[in-house]
C-alpha cells in the first residue's frame, strides 16, 4: 500500500498546489481589506463567485467567436477581474463607507452587513441567472486543448489548463508585489493601513485608497473565480461560500493583513487539505474519506489559533475581530 501512496504523492501535491493557487488569490482580497480597514469583508466570497459567473458568461457568449482557448480564458479572466473589482468597490461604497462616515467603530456592524450582503448577492445571482438562462447551475465547457496532458518526471502529468492556472497566479502575485512595494498607490495603501489619519495629513484621501484596495482585492477574487471554474468546471451562485471561508482561513494562516502571508497560507492550506483528504482515506481504509477534507482545513485553523494566533508570517499583536 505504501508504494501506491508514494506514487500518488506528486499528483496529489500538484492537485493541492492548484487548489492553493485559488485560495491564495481569494485570500489576498481578505487580507488587503483587513490591512486598510481592520475588518473581514465576508462578502468577498461572493465577489469570487460573481467572478466565476462572469467568466461563464464570457464562455457562453464569446466562446463561439474566440477559437483559441487561451485567448478565451484570458478574456474571461479580464472580464471577471473587472466585474469583481467594480463589485467590490460598490460593496465598499454602499455598505462600509456609510458606516465609517457615521463614525461607528463597532466591528460587529460591518460584519453583519457583510453577511447580509453575501446572502443578497447569492440569491440575486440565482434570480438573474434563473431569469436569464432558466437555470442557475453553470459549467465551464471542457476543451480538448486545455485538458491535454504533458508528461512530467516522477510519473506526474499536468494539463494545459493547470499550467495556465499556475502561470496566471504567479503573474498576478508578482504584479501585486510590484504594485504594493514600488508604486505610489502601493505606498499609499501601506501608509493608510498603518495610520490613516496621519496619511491624510500628507494629502492622501483614505477613502479613495480604500476604494482602490477593494478594486484590486476584488479583481484578484474575480480572477480566482475563473481559475476555479477552469479547474473544477461546475459553478453555481452558492459556490463562493466554502472556497471563501477556506481562503479566509488561509489568510489567517499566513497572518491576516500580510499579503505574502495570504499567498503562502493559500498554497499551504490547499496542499495540506488535498494531502489530508487523500491520505486519510487510505490510512483509515476509507472510513474517513475525501468528503472530510473541509474539516481538515478547519482543524488546521483551530490548531493554528491555539499555537500561533498571529499566523505564519504575522507579527504578534493582540486585538481585532
Amino acid at each position: 500500500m505504501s508504494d501506491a501512496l508514494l506514487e500518488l504523492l506528486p499528483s496529489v501535491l500538484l492537485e493541492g498546489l492548484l487548489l492553493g493557487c485559488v485560495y491564495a488569490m481569494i485570500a489576498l482580497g481578505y487580507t488587503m481589506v483587513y490591512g486598510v480597514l481592520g475588518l473581514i469583508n465576508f462578502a468577498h466570497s461572493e465577489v469570487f463567485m460573481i467572478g466565476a459567473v462572469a467568466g461563464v458568461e464570457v464562455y457562453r457568449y464569446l466562446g463561439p467567436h474566440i477559437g483559441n482557448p487561451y485567448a478565451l480564458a484570458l478574456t474571461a479572466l479580464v472580464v471577471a477581474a473587472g466585474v469583481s473589482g467594480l463589485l467590490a468597490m460598490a460593496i465598499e461604497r454602499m455598505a462600509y463607507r456609510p458606516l465609517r462616515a457615521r463614525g461607528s467603530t463597532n466591528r460587529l456592524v460591518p460584519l453583519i452587513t457583510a453577511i447580509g450582503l453575501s446572502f443578497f448577492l447569492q440569491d440575486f445571482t440565482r434570480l438573474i441567472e434563473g431569469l436569464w438562462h432558466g437555470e442557475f447551475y453553470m459549467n465551464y465547457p471542457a476543451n480538448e486543448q486545455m485538458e491535454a496532458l504533458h508528461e512530467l518526471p516522477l510519473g506526474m502529468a499536468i494539463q494545459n489548463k493547470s499550467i495556465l492556472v499556475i502561470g496566471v497566479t504567479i503573474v498576478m502575485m508578482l504584479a501585486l508585489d510590484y504594485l504594493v512595494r514600488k508604486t505610489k498607490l502601493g505606498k499609499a495603501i501601506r501608509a493608510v493601513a498603518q495610520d490613516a489619519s496621519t496619511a491624510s495629513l500628507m494629502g492622501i484621501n483614505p477613502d479613495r485608497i480604500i476604494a482602490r484596495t477593494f478594486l484590486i482585492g476584488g479583481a484578484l477574487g474575480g480572477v480566482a473565480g475563473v481559475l476555479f471554474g477552469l479547474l473544477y468546471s461546475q459553478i453555481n451562485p452558492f459556490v463562493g461560500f466554502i472556497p471563501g471561508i477556506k481562503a479566509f482561513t488561509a489568510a489567517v494562516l499566513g497572518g491576516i493583513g500580510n499579503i505574502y502571508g495570504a499567498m503562502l497560507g493559500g498554497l499551504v492550506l490547499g496542499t495540506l487539505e488535498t494531502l489530508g483528504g487523500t491520505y486519510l482515506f487510505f490510512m483509515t481504509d476509507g472510513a474517513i474519506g475525501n468528503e472530510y477534507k473541509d474539516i481538515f482545513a478547519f482543524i488546521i485553523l483551530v490548531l493554528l489559533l491555539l499555537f500561533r494566533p498571529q499566523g505564519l508570517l504575522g507579527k504578534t499583536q493582540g486585538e481585532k475581530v
Partner: protein
Amino acid sequence: MNAAAVLQLQNVQAFYGHIHALKDISIEVREGEIVTLIGSNGAGKSTTLRCISGLLAPTEGKILLRGQPIHGKKPYEVAALGIGHAPEGRKIFPQLTVEENLAIGAYLESDKTIIARRKREVYELFPRLAERHKQDGGTLSGGEQQMLAIGRALMQDPAILLLDEPTLGLAPVLVELLFETLQTLHKAGKTILLVEQNAWHALQIAQRAYVLQTGIITHQGAAKDLSNNPEIKQAYLGGD
C-alpha cells in the same frame, strides 16, 4: 505687520469630546516667521494644530490660509492647500522605509525631479536620514523619527509648517540640534508654527509667541518681550 499673514485663526472654538478645548483663539503667523505656541499640558496647543490641519473641526470661528478659509475642510484637502503638519508623537509610518516615508510626504507632487530635489534638501538637512534611507521607520531612534517626521512634512513644501512638540522625549544634544535645524529652516524662509513644551528654547528662536492656558490665549507678543515677562518666567521658564 509688514509681511503678509500666511495663517490666521479668528475666534476659533473647538470641543474635544465634551471638553471645551479652545475658547476663542485668535492667532496669526506671517510669511517667514517662526511663531511659537507655548503652555502647559492640556492647554490646547495640539488641539489648535489639529484644528488647523483639519483633524478636528472647529465649532466656531475661521481659519484662513493666505486669506482662503480652510476650516471644516478635510485634512487631505488642507494638506493640498499648503499645510504641512508634523503631528504629536511623530507618527511616522513604522513599516515604511525612511525613503518611503518621505515619498508619502510628497504624495501630492507628481513631478519626479521636484520630488528628487526636495528629498535631497531633506537629506542635506538631516544627513542621518540619508544614512538610514533603506531602514524601516519603526527601527529609528526617537530623534531620527522626529527628523523623519519633520522631513516628511517638508516634502510637502508647505506654505506653513506645523510642528507639534518636536523635542519631546529627546536627549539634550538632540534638542539643541533640532532647534538649530529650525533656525536653518527659518533662514531659508520657511514659515513655522511651533508648539513646544520647552518654552525657553522656543522663545529663543521664535519671533513672536502666544501663551495658551486652558484654551485661552493669556499672553501674546514678541518672543523677546514674553521671555522677559516675570509672570511667564514664573509659570513656564522655571522661575528666575
